[in-house]
């Protein structure tokens, strides 16, 4: 299994500011994913980030609001731009790790964001 770390683990931010969340994996992976989990809710996929190409965003999420970088096969960042209280969520990074012939997703510990 892949070991994933995220920074920061939590933050409190003022509305209108931006926060960049880092995700580091202990092995090279092709695909990395960013999720949002609002309080008491399930996980919602924001985007898929492949190294060397533009991230692919899910419906309801746009690059201007959630720019993503994927400079190499072990690292990615997600920026939450021009934050509002509605952006208060847990943001999770995950990666695919092949388990036999199947692909399994492993998740980081998450970044808990509170926007005031």
């Amino acid at each position: 299994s892949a070991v994933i770390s995220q920074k920061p683990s939590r933050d409190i931010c003022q509305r209108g500011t931006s926060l960049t969340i880092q995700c580091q994996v202990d092995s090279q992976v092709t695909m990395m994913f960013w999720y949002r989990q609002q309080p008491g809710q399930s996980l919602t996929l924001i985007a898929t980030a492949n190294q060397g190409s533009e991230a692919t965003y899910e419906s309801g999420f746009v690059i201007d609001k959630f720019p993503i970088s994927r400079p190499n096969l072990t690292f990615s960042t997600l920026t939450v731009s021009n934050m509002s209280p509605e952006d208060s969520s847990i943001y999770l990074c995950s990666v695919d790790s092949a388990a036999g012939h199947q692909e399994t997703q492993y998740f980081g510990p998450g970044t808990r964001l509170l926007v005031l």
Partner: protein
Amino acid sequence: LAKTTQPISMDSYEGQEVNITCSHNNIATNDYITWYQQFPSQGPRFIIQGYKTKVTNEVASLFIPADRKSSTLSLPRVSLSDTAVYYCLVANSGSARQLTFGSGTQLTVLP
């Protein structure tokens, strides 16, 4: 996308077997079924994955009927530490992955 449906919550007692069922009527031929466990303030943790029939590992079993329109996660002899939210995920493999998490089931294990 294969939408999934799970019970919102379940209660059980220590030592009992717990079965959580997930419905995924629109599952595609190349979709796998994966279950995750999530504790508060942590990322989801992989439990088990399967495609059809039965899969068993050291912590759980996964039962998938022939039509694959549902799956059941079975936790043998639960303990208080198994209190968590359990998510069913149906996703395909490959570069065109589509990932849909269910609503999750809050399992509460009582003493």
